[in-house]
């Protein structure tokens, strides 16, 4: 109970810096609880960086920010082994990836080579440099941001790489009233330092473990399976969702249910996380640019019967 209140405290604190963005913030927190990585897709200046900083601050995670550019090399992220003349051997100098919360800004600006180096580290929780393995700290949470890929000079992430992100969310423009408030207060950056530290990393880990205990009944599993099956049976989906996508959906629904104060998952939990989990994993058959995920997700939501 206490843990859950603390997490809700995190949510409240975040809302003070990102006004009127309860849902994306809750999703981001869900993603963190589900030990997944988050992809925020939005135009510059929408508060992506603020979200990452604030999240790191209130959860007490160490954070590093990496601004991705097109001339970046894998070693710039992972780290490098350097020969030390003093003791005549190579020593590994860890890169910025060795942190608990990594903000990878504009990940689609860099080359696929560098992208995949990061994604590999995300997937495996460790880094291999010169045949030596270096474990990443736990918890390890990546928030990557990217601008919509229609912008010039980007390398859009392929499906297989998108799949590594548990969720993809957008923040979107603030509501008019909220924006007025924002304009009046004159930005938020300085206020992040004032946020309370609501959680220790250890508490975060136990919260993550608590989420895994949330009960998912047979009826609910059936519903999730019907959702997956729907993406495979209907022609407007270019390809169906993978079992990994299904597992991700269920994991997120568990965390959402836990955050909502339940010890069991209900279909509404699944529906709440559905768009964030599914949209970047499906593509319409006639959609080369992968712009239509929202429409497909909406169909999925509307047409799959909760009760079977």
């Amino acid at each position, binding site marked *: 109970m206490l843990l859950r209140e603390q997490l809700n405290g995190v949510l409240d604190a975040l809302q003070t810096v990102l006004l009127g963005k309860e849902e994306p913030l809750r999703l981001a927190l869900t993603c963190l609880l589900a030990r997944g990585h988050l992809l925020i897709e939005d135009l510059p200046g929408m508060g992506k960086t603020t979200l990452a900083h604030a999240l790191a601050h209130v959860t007490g995670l160490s954070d590093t920010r990496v601004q991705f550019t097109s001339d970046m090399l894998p070693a710039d992220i992972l780290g490098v082994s350097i020969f030390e003349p003093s003791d005549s051997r190579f020593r590994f100098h860890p890169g910025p990836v060795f942190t608990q919360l990594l903000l990878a800004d504009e990940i689609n600006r860099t080359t696929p080579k560098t992208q995949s180096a990061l994604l590999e580290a995300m997937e495996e929780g460790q880094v291999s440099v010169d045949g030596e393995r270096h474990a990443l700290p736990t918890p390890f949470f990546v928030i990557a941001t990217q601008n919509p890929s229609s912008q010039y000079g980007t390398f859009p992430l392929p499906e297989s790489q998108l799949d590594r992100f548990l969720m993809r969310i957008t923040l979107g423009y603030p509501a008019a009233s909220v924006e007025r408030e924002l304009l009046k207060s004159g930005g938020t950056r300085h206020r992040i330092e004032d946020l309370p530290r609501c959680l220790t990393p250890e508490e975060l880990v136990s919260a993550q473990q608590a989420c895994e205990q949330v009960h998912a009944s047979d009826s609910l599993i059936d519903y999730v399976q019907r959702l997956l099956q729907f993406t495979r049976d209907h022609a407007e989906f270019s390809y169906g969702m993978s079992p990994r996508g299904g597992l991700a959906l269920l994991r997120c629904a568990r965390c959402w249910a836990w955050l909502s104060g339940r010890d069991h998952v*209900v279909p509404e939990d699944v529906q709440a996380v559905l768009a964030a989990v599914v949209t970047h994993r499906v593509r319409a058959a006639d959609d080369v640019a992968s712009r239509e995920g929202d429409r497909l997700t909406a169909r999925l939501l509307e047409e799959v019967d909760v009760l079977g």
Partner: protein
Amino acid sequence: MKGQQISRSAVMWQLLACVLVSLPHLSWLPAWIPVLLMLTLGARVMMHLGRWSLPSRTLKLVLVVAATLGLIFSFGQQAGPETMVALLVVSMALKLIEIYRRRDALVLIYVAFFVLGTAFLFSSSVWTALYALAALVVVLAALLSIHQRDGVSALQTLRRVLLLAAPALPLMVLLFLVFPRLEPLWSVTLDSGGATTGLSDTLSPGDVSQLAQSDELAFRVTFDAEPPVPAERYWRVLVLDRFDGRQWSRSPQRERLRQEKLEPLGGEVRYEVVLEPSQRPWLVALDQPLAVPDWAAVKPGRTLEAREPVERRVRYTLVSHRRYRLQPMLTQQERAHYLQLPERGNGEARALARQWLAQAGGDSAAFIALMLNYYNQSFTYTLSPGRLLGDRIDRFLMESQQGYCEHFASASAFMLRSVGIPARVVTGYQGGEWNPHQSYLQVRQYDAHAWVEAWQEGRGWVRIDPTAAVAPERIESSADVFLRSVDSGQVASRALQTGWLLGLRQRYDAFNFAWQRWVLNYEGEQEHLLRDWLGGLDYWRVAAFLLLPGGLVLVGLSMRQWMARTLRRGDPVEAALIGFQQRAGACFSRRQPQQSLSAWIHSDLVPHWPEAADELMQLAELDNARRYRYGAQDDQDQAILALTRRLAKQLPRRTRVV
């Protein structure tokens, strides 16, 4: 293909089944058939272990030709059931070596079933039945095992077989009770050990005493009322009316005699005889029967004879009168017939008879009394009278003076005839052992007896038993007891029958009798039973009775199938919820697919139906808990059912709110 192959345990069951079903036939099969079976069993094991490969087409052909020749050689032209059974066993043995797929195994097992059934052609004892039952379980296990995986233990297989066979039991009983016993199919029995002992239609000295060595069962009798006392238990079988100086026999002219006239005088006894197969047509009857079964006839001399030799156990009911007058008048021809004697021989006996007749003053009754008195003085009744040479009756009367019943009967009839009193020898059984456990009389071959009937003016044929004069204890107790008392050495086989062993044997025999009477010879009972049950034996009644149970079973099965199909849609709670959802949906707004039931209730029903808000929320809560939290629980299910029922009743009658 792989799925059709047979598991290791299935092969073992098959081999065991083959051995068990063949065992009952071992005693009469030509030796080469069991040998062939053992060889193919061995070959099967070797093939199964992978040491040998499956036989080639040529080898199989050679085996088939050899086995066919063997059958022809062994059985020749004989086309009896034995040949057929031998053919079945041989084909089963040959099939063993080419089992590869499930289909082959099925053929083998079906043949095994059939071979098992043929065991009853040769023996129908209760032991055979028990054995067949045990073997049946094994064959069923073999059948079952080819449908199950390897690794099911033998015990488990047996348990499954019993479980599967149990429902067939009532059907079996029903079929036993009502299935018509179709002739001749039903009556094929080959008790091939049938070198039966029994009375023959001739009587020479030593014949009956030989029978006394045999404790084989002759017949059993149950009485409607009290059984007659032992001294009155004279079971007539044959009348011997011709003497050739050595032996008594039935004369060919006897068929020309007229039927004898019987005047019953009382002492009525009603009884039922179960006669063991004797391979002879004649039947036993208590002295003297009135009516006869319609498949038998009364012969001159008032003996009963069936139209066919008795080859299987028969059962018939008779009424006898113990006091009667038989044939009060004799024609000249009849008198001559019953006075027939050889011209010469046994002069001393004739002389003795003449002397007695003179002494009796020509009165036949007095003559008989003298004769019996003579026996009573110095004669010995024994099973081992020694050999008599020459004029046997003279030697018996004058010298050895010891004999068994046939000696006395033969001598008495001879002497009666020699002085002009019509006489005849009657053979049959006397006495019997009373079995208290099933209340029946059991007569064995050692109860065989011979006595004399003499014709007296006005009284007709009168039974005279010289044995009663010599050894009255033979007549008054059973032959068994008597023989044990006089000749213990002769009857060693029965020496054990004392005390509790006797009781045990009687119980066993009673059990056997019940088995034969109620199980094997059930036909007669069947008719009574059906008549009682159905109140008649009209065709429509029997047909309805036979068709009804099967029809009921079929209806039951189809009902179950139908129920299963409708129930598959979901449990009753789900059905109630769906029903409620449809009715409430028609009233308010339908549930959208993405809405869970509780979400729909909260968003669409509660706002528009505030009167039922509490119950609706309760239903939503219950459904949520059932579906997503705790799973189905009985009390919760009941609550849901009650709520949906109540809510459905309260549904407002108004059109859909937009």
